[in-house]
């Protein structure tokens, strides 16, 4: 860093602190929102993405896991699927978003009824307790324990019925709601869905061409839709994030503008204050490019320090925010750090651009005026 740039920057500690603080706040907001987006994105698609299901069969018009408006009769399905050689195993699945209660505490959950004997569509990972629910039993997502204090052995009420918690699983967190798993026939009974399922979930033979199967199946089964795991996971993720992303994006843009404004104004003020000194440098033989470098270095160093401070803030406050508000699911990726770093560089360059333009107009002969 050039000597004059360093001295100009660090001689005004308060102004530098304000500039760094402004950039840091901006970086923190951008980084935090990006991490929040990543965290949500990671959570809301995880179950569908990781569950051992290749194809989801649903009523036509069903777009994602959470809409769950699908209603499929289970009668005769075994015969229909048995003749399709690309299907290895299948199982009906009942899915219904609802409110559950532990005492007076209300919880948003998604009730999943699955066949524990087949295991398809069941809990992703058992963290504690029984691996599968028995009659009158439920396996909850551990986020319900973290968020509402539901423990193994507790009773919760859902779908008009009381269930005893026998296990904790992970991977069923949709941020706003969590999956609870019960036996298929009990879910059907509780929801008055005897003889019906929300989905049929299929495991395919390794050689099956999934896209080809989807096309074939939808051709022979009008009114029914088949969706690959990837498409279903993406649709599920988009259902939640599509509503949130524009809001996040607007705040990110605002944060960028705030950071830019604070950095720009402080750099501009610092430059204008030293205009005579820049004129002196010009008079004694320094080129414009040298002066531009002086200002740009100050702007970039301010941006860099603001970026570092913002990252420290993000890393320090994210766990605190997560503890205070469980919905703050933050996932920090190095790719996002790189993007925010690049944004900070852009912010610094723009912040330095206006003062640089001002320098170009300095008349070096002005320094002869007393």
């Amino acid at each position, binding site marked *: 860093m050039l000597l004059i740039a360093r001295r100009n920057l660090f001689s005004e500690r308060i102004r530098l602190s304000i500039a760094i603080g402004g950039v840091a706040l901006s970086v923190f907001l951008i980084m935090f929102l990006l991490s929040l987006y990543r965290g949500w994105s990671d959570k809301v698609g995880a179950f569908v993405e990781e569950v051992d299901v290749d194809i989801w069969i649903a009523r036509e018009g069903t777009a994602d896991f959470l809409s769950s408006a699908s209603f499929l009769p289970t009668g005769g399905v075994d015969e229909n699927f048995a003749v399709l050689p690309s299907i290895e195993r299948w199982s009906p699945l009942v899915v219904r978003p609802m409110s559950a209660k532990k005492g007076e505490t209300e919880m948003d959950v998604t009730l999943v009824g699955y066949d524990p004997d087949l295991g398809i569509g069941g809990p992703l990972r058992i963290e504690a307790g029984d691996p599968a629910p028995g009659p009158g039993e439920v396996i909850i997502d551990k986020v319900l324990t973290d968020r509402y204090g539901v423990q193994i052995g507790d009773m919760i009420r859902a779908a008009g019925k009381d269930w005893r918690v026998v296990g904790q699983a992970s991977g069923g967190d949709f941020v706003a709601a969590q999956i609870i798993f019960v036996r298929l026939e009990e879910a059907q009974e509780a929801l008055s869905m005897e003889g019906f399922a929300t989905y049929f979930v299929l495991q395919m033979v390794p050689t099956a061409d999934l896209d080809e199967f989807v096309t074939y199946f939808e051709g022979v089964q009008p009114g029914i839709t088949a969706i690959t795991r990837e498409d279903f996971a993406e649709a599920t993720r988009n259902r939640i994030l599509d509503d949130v992303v524009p809001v996040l994006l607007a705040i990110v843009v605002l944060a960028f503008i705030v950071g830019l404004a604070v950095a720009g104004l402080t750099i501009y003020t610092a430059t204008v204050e030293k205009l005579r000194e820049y004129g002196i440098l010009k008079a004694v*033989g320094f080129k414009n490019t040298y002066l531009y470098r002086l200002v740009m270095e100050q702007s970039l160093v301010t941006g860099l320090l603001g970026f570092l401070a913002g990252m420290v803030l993000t890393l320090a406050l994210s766990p605190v925010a997560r503890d205070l508000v469980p919905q703050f699911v933050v996932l920090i990726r190095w790719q996002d750090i790189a993007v925010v770093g690049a944004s900070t560089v852009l912010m610094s360059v723009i912040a330095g651009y206006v003062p640089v333009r001002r320098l170009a107009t300095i008349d070096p002969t002005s*320094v002869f005026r007393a």
Partner: protein
Amino acid sequence: MHGVTKVFGAGEAAVIALDNVDFEARAGEVVVVMGPSGAGKTTFLTIAGALLRPTSGSVEIAGIDVSSLKERDLPPVRREKVGFIFQSFNLLESLSCLENVLIVMTADGATTRGVTNRAKELLDMLGLSHRLKLLPKHLSGGEKQRVAIGRALANNPDLILADEPTANLDSKRGREVMQFLRQIAFEMNKAVVIVSHDQRSREVAHRVQWLEDGVFRADVVTVRDPVCSRIVEVLGAPEATFADRSFHFCSDGCREAFEAGPETYADAVTN
């Protein structure tokens, strides 16, 4: 300078600041340029220092025809061939004395031992060896001007241009600075051009040139205004008489001040 003319503005609003001026300063010589306010002294200095281009004519510094150089080629000439000394010192406030000198030697502040030693030698020669690390705000006016002289000499230029170098100094410090400038011309073989109103500058000058209305005049008789000490041309200046002596003034204001108490001022000058 050969046939240098500088016109500001155009048409009826055009002002001729310098009119076909010829000027030369040689190595080892101190030339003082005097003249009334608005005579074109600053324009002369900025053109001589390659900061301003003449409308016509040519300017040569240390054998380089700067009037034919492109704009982007002028800064290196200013840095290497010319040393500027300003009326208001114009030091960089965030840099120490030593750094103010070093900065013009190294541009990027990357100093070597040799460069630092030369800067220290210069400041030592100017009596500032005990002030190297101080910021300008901790220096007296005389010390600031000596740092500025050190900066002007940093790149060993051929030409030193000083604009009213004693204007912000008291009598003693002003005389000191003038002596330094004379020493620089003599001992370092530089051409020193001083634009000044200060009568003391005459004491160190090999030549004094009177600039008025954009031209150097040779037939000028000058005296010192007893009230403000400015050098004024006798012809056309406000005049007063006291004790059988004539006094000339830069303005009616000074004349009136003199007439209000001539005994206060009369002994201050010898006309």
